[in-house]
């Protein structure tokens, strides 16, 4: 408890699945303020209620936005920084679009869908980091990008989503290199297979009970959001890998 005491946090894709669970668990760890962003205002209302139930003292800001446009991202960052008086400690780029379902092969992928997936999954995190950095550069901060094993392996049918996650991995490494020596760290996490609405829609023929509950994967995110990871930059974590903690220790002691 209280590992995130006093922290101001922005989470995208927070209306369901992993984003929702991160918002609740961050509040339980004492976060001072959490801005939750997703397209649907009604879904955000429900998440906000769950956060307040978990931690009545948490300040929750709901922002309904479509992250596929720059103007919307500017609005998200400006509103967040207004609410938190210019302060932001943690940014979690979690929002993802899976694209059309059932998943078409790249050969059949409509260009409009391809562009929309890249806008949401890759361009939006780039812009969010760019616009959030000024609030982090003096006090330090943690940026956590959510990736996938589809960002390392080319799976047939995962088309634009997989390509966007390859992009997230490269972009995270580049941000981390550019910010080396500053007090802002950039790391990325593959949460592994999770039983979420998005995953069920993408692979309706698979048995979702074999996938992890989002609540089982948040520990590495809490670690990366907290001061415990203040010297960790440019690292990829796998949330369901038993050894992630040891990996963090090894990097820490280098």
């Amino acid at each position: 408890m209280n590992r995130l005491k006093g922290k101001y946090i922005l989470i995208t894709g927070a209306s369901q699945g992993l984003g929702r669970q991160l918002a609740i668990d961050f509040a339980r760890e004492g976060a001072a303020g959490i801005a939750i962003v997703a397209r649907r205002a009604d879904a955000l209302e429900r998440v906000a209620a769950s956060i307040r139930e978990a931690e009545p003292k948490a300040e929750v800001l709901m922002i309904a936005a479509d992250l596929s446009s720059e103007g919307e991202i500017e609005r998200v960052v400006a509103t967040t920084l207004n609410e938190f008086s210019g302060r932001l400690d943690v940014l979690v780029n979690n929002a993802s679009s899976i694209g059309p379902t059932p998943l078409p092969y790249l050969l059949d992928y409509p260009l409009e869908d391809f562009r929309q997936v890249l806008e949401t999954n890759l361009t939006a995190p780039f812009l969010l980091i760019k616009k959030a950095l000024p609030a982090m550069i003096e006090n330090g901060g943690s940026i956590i990008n959510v990736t996938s094993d589809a960002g390392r392996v080319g799976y047939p049918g995962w088309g634009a989503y997989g390509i966007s996650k390859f992009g997230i991995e490269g972009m995270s490494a580049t941000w981390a290199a550019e910010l080396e020596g500053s007090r802002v760290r950039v790391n990325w996490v593959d949460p592994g297979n999770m039983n979420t609405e998005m995953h069920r829609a993408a692979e309706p023929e698979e048995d979702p009970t074999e996938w992890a509950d989002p609540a089982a994967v948040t520990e590495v995110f809490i670690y990366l959001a907290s001061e415990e990871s203040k010297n960790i930059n440019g690292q990829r974590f796998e949330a369901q890998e038993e050894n992630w903690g040891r990996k963090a220790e090894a990097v820490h002691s280098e």
Partner: protein
Amino acid sequence: MSAPFSFTLPPDLAADEPPERRGIARDEVRLLVIDRASGQLEHTRIDHFGEFLRAGDLLVFNSSRTLPASLSGCVEQGPCIEIRLAEHLPDDSWLALLRCQRGDPFSCGLRPKMLVDLGQGLTATIRMRDEHIPRLWQLSFSKSGSELINAFYLVGRPVRYEYVSAPWGLDYYQTVYAREPGSAEMPSAGRAFTWRLLFDLQRRGVETAYIVLHTGLSSYLDEELDAQHPASEEEYFVSERAADKINEAHARGGRVIAVGTTVVRTLESAVDEQKRVQAGHGYTRLHITANHALKAVDGLLTGLHEPEASHLDLLTSFLPAEKIKEAYQEAVRQKYLWHEFGDLNLIL
């Protein structure tokens, strides 16, 4: 009140588009350096700024984020108007310039209690004319706090003056280090900074600090009124960290260099008689002129100001008017560019 000196600004020296759209980077605009001690001029570019600084100097930036402060709406069965936000008042109302979209821009029957529908569920109620600057009206919005800021971003656009060639997006009106929103117009002296330049300055041992002053409007679209330089009241914040950095810089013999006239106004408002800057939140109407003895600031990086701009008064607190006039004449000869997308002037 008149400007401390006059000069003629040829219209072709107004920067009508951002440098990035003129084929140069943000940090490649020109820099006219005036040496305060000798009066000597030097021509360079902002990416060479670091060559004029020393390790231990402190740059102070204004991190206020530009609002999309131009809103459009209509009064039910009444005129449609543009609202240009000018200032957020302590009672949560706003001062704004109201400009009629048809006919005489300032005469379309606006009166108190009229309700302006701005879309997205946002309305503004007209209250009364401002007593200091009658061109401005006091407004109450139907939302407040972050909900109101969110609504401004949904319906607003950046304030644009007639010399700007196209309705550039809000991103062109932001500094790269902008944080909390609140400025009606971009604190534009900092626009030329890129992270590459900021990191380069850091490597040279130059320190940075950030204050916030939410800027008002630079023009009330009324030449006579603008020429009188009515001092609008602007909200500022100086953090403990910023105050400490400024006082420490002076204590070690470093120079405190304001990036923008807004920073000069803030620090000269927040400094005490012992020349120590105090952290705090306040509102300032400070109008700095040649008679003002600077206590907190040693140098200034700023844009080039229009012939009638009140900022010219402020420059005379750094240098005699005659020296500034010579520099401005040279800037005109050398075809420096004016306004928010233009070139810069360092007085150090």
